[in-house]
């Protein structure tokens, strides 16, 4: 069964790049894993995910309700808005659904991990300290959870 780890975010926008940092950590721990890093979103993700059996997405989230560095696990339907109009791009859930509708071979299992972040509007190559410190722990949690 092929597994794809998709690290999302912008690696030069402080905490926005946490998904990419975690994906890199997973690759470091388990070099045989297929890991893709991208700052793309929405329908562009179909190019990477079509054809794989199991998909693990890691991204940043800013709910303002959790502690920076807190890890959440989501299902695609958790991200689906009731109103899908958007200024630029579509959400992951709609992209996966569009893939199905267009006859692409879509993953049978999709796990989405989101890390609560604090800062994503300042250009910087590293996450804030509180998020950065949690990266090894989060990578381990995902490996356990996904039995990687």
């Amino acid at each position, binding site marked *: 069964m092929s597994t794809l780890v998709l690290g999302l975010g912008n690696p030069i926008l402080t905490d926005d790049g946490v998904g990419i940092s975690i994906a890199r950590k997973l690759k470091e721990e388990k070099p045989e894993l297929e890991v893709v890093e991208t700052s793309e979103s929405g329908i562009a993700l179909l190019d990477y995910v079509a054809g794989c059996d199991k998909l693990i997405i890691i991204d940043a*989230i800013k*709910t*303002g*309700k959790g502690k920076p560095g807190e890890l959440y696990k989501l299902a695609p339907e958790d991200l689906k808005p009731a109103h899908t*109009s958007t*200024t*630029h791009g579509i959400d992951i859930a709609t992209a996966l659904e569009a893939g199905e509708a267009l006859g692409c071979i879509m993953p049978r299992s999709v796990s989405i991990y989101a890390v609560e972040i604090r800062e994503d509007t300042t250009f910087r190559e590293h996450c804030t300290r509180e998020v950065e410190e949690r990266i090894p722990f989060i990578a381990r949690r995902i490996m356990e959870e996904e039995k990687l």
Partner: protein
Amino acid sequence: MRKITIDPITRLEGHGKIEIFLNDEGNCERAYLQIPELRGFEKFCEGRPAEEMPRITTMICGVCPTAHHMASTKALDDLWKVEPTPAAKKIRELMYNAFQAEDHILHFFFLGGPDFVVGPRAPAGERNVLGVIARAGMEAGGKVIEVRKRLRNVLRLIGGKPVMPSCGLPGGVSKGISEEERQTIIEAADYAVEFSRFALGLFDAIVLRNKKYVDLVTGEVYKHRTYYMGLVDENNRVNFYDGDIRVVDPKGKEFARFKARQYLDHIREHVEPWTYVRFSYLKNVGWKGFVDGEGSGVFRVAPLARLNAAEGMATPLAQEAYEKMYEVLGGKPVHNTLAFHWARLIEALYASERLSELARDPELTSPEVRNIPTQVPREGVGVVEAPRGTLIHHYQTDERGILTGVNLVVATQNNAAAICMSVEKAARSLIKKGKVPAGILNMIEMAFRAYDPCHACATHSLPGRMPLEVNVYDAEKRLVKRLTRDG
């Protein structure tokens, strides 16, 4: 680990906010669109070698990395005063047109198109790409996926990756194109030409043959009589990669024509206390506020603006489509914001045709793909037409090429004043005597979706879209209504 459900409004803080202020009569007095500002880019770049910029700037946003890469590469040409070889120029332009075609097609079918293909008053849950597939058919959906795949393959062949290319160097590109690669590009280009014709046909069948849609496109709600800006070639035809910057006035008469290096003589930025966004305006007209007309320096960029600022298209099929648009919409310039969607498809056809021309150019496979810079760097300016409008990169360095100053004039900033005006106009026409109709959110979104504004920097993190909130205040500045996507 906590299990949470993402409410679309949870990421609203600092993101996509429209504030509408009503007067004593309950009508819209002013409306403001606020978007988040990314900070510290100039500081981030200073002290780095300038030649890193084409790779750094692709990371500014996940939507138009190729545009930043190309503007940056051209700024480096100017910085080192080195001309790329003829083959390198053709390779760059070819890649750039593949990018434009892919981006425009994506916008029409996935972002802007649903308003028309599915319908502006269709249930919100259907007004998306799934609704487009349901209306236009599986075959159309399959074609969209195929054309994207082929065009992204062209970008990968030249740029190294389908996004975030790394091929641009001062004086040329990092590698040439083989005969085998040329064949792949020719096939992709021909497919893209056919697809773009199909897309225009779809627009014709769905929009132009529907009086309600034509009325919507040509109506006053989305109309502004502004100046228009775009790059043109020596014959005043649209060009995405190179040329002079041309500006026409609201009557369509040439107002200015200048080189990228002269941009500071023509473009100025206005700052408002309520937003970090800098509003570009024409220096030689002046900032007169968020108003249109000949006396206001507000100008627009992006597809319709480019077509208005030019005198035609440089390829035959696109020229035919260009003539048809102006004939149907009553001549030049067209001021209707929703016509941006039509112009975008005409540009997709032009980009595909130009891709096809360049793919067949005998010089394309020449191994002479770089001139080595020999001058001492000081200052360089590069310009391209990003899908969302004119994009300028301006760098200053010390004699070692270490950056001491960086200024980017991005497309959405050029359209920012007009976007605010469109939002306000939609709000004024829809809110009467304190009554805020339910459909206002989509009507306002339609106003700025036409510009395809690049707020993608704010959409990287989950849930993967820019949330939008509309707050309506009465004459006493009390919040009387809050609308969100689910509102």
